[in-house]
């Protein structure tokens, strides 16, 4: 029995702090003793005498449960509006301005690369095989928005994360389209639309043609899916 085992009573009572709880759950995963104790305690409710549930309880409870759920199902399936979920991610990154981007990467992918990115952003120390570049995009004339991009290059893959704010609202099918350019030749690299807070973000990953990009740009495109830009450039930067 180690000191972690002492926490089992507090764990059952739900009086551990979030951190302690997490630590104990890790312990629980490896300590058969504690798990058996938790499971033995888990048999205690069966001591209860059968009590007849009140009439209509099921429909009341289910109605309340489903009603309580905030409406968020109807959002379009785009790679945007992920920032709302940021607080769920453990705020590990000390560079707070990057936290939403990191969160976006973690949320949008289960890629191994995301971890590398996370570590890089956290420690600000490039690992041997990957490169992390953070870019502040410059707005074009008369464009009020701003954006940051993170480009993570690893052997055989390139990830682009863009986070933009104070965006102008779009009309109709318009999207903000991200492009990577090499000697003036653009390829699409993700798109997003602003949310109610005029923010948007996108994550894009490519495994071919990952090297040699010199420019990143965002255009306001009349529609999603264009292979070459039709709209004007609103934000851009050299890479």
């Amino acid at each position: 029995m180690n000191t972690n085992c002492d926490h089992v009573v507090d764990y059952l009572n739900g009086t551990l702090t979030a951190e302690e709880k997490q630590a104990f759950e890790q312990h629980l995963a490896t300590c058969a003793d504690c798990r058996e104790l938790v499971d033995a305690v888990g048999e205690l409710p069966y001591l209860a005498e059968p009590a007849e549930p009140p009439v209509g309880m099921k429909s009341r409870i289910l109605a309340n449960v489903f009603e309580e759920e905030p409406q968020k199902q109807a959002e379009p399936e785009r790679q945007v509006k992920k920032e709302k979920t940021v607080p769920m991610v453990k705020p590990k990154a000390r560079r707070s301005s990057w936290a939403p981007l990191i969160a976006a990467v973690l949320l949008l992918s289960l890629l191994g690369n995301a971890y590398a990115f996370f570590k890089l952003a956290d420690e600000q120390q490039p690992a041997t095989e990957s490169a992390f570049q953070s870019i502040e995009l410059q707005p074009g004339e008369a464009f009020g928005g701003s954006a940051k991009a993170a480009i993570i290059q690893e052997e055989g893959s390139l990830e682009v994360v863009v986070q933009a704010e104070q965006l102008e609202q779009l009309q109709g099918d318009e999207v903000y389209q991200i492009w990577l350019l090499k000697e003036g030749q653009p390829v699409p690299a993700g798109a997003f639309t602003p949310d109610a807070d005029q923010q948007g973000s996108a994550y894009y990953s490519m495994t071919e043609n990952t090297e040699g990009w010199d420019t990143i740009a965002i255009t306001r495109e009349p529609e999603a899916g264009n292979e070459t830009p039709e709209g004007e450039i609103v934000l851009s930067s050299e890479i």
Partner: protein
Amino acid sequence: MEKSSDFMLYTRIQQKEKAALEQLYDRYEKILFSFLYKMTEDRDLAEEALQEVFIKLWRGKGEYDESKGKFTSWLFTMSRNSAIDLIRKQKKPSVPLDEIGDLVSPETAVEELAEWQEQKDQIQEAVSELSSEQQKMIQLFYFKGMTHETISTMCDIPLGTVKSRIRLALSKLKKTLHGVQERGAIDDEY
């Protein structure tokens, strides 16, 4: 079999499948309500606590995986905590020790056979092998949701030793239940 399908249901609930939540509700309504009623001694409070449990499940608060023990252990712990919150909010005046019922209620001749009779027989037997002091600890701590302070005052034991006594009682329960289950397994073979 039963366990993995609980886990399946739980997974589907996390994916916001209403039918899965309803199935889980149907599966555990009776035992959860009975358990919560035993704790709160109030049908309205028991219903309120039960609703909290399913709201938490639906919102995905607290995550279950098999490294945390059985699904039912996790579900019951969450339910118990909901009940404790409500009990403490109520601030009922505390009842004298001798008016608090026993951990195992005396059986009556006409007792309805519980759906969970088999588990009940086992845990009841395991509990009966504990000292009366240990049974009391479990009753006050687990079912009545009393704080360590209350238990300390009520049973006149130093606050510093309450936790270790609870832990000791639970450890003992783990052992006696294990014994009962093993004997059961042997009985089944004949």
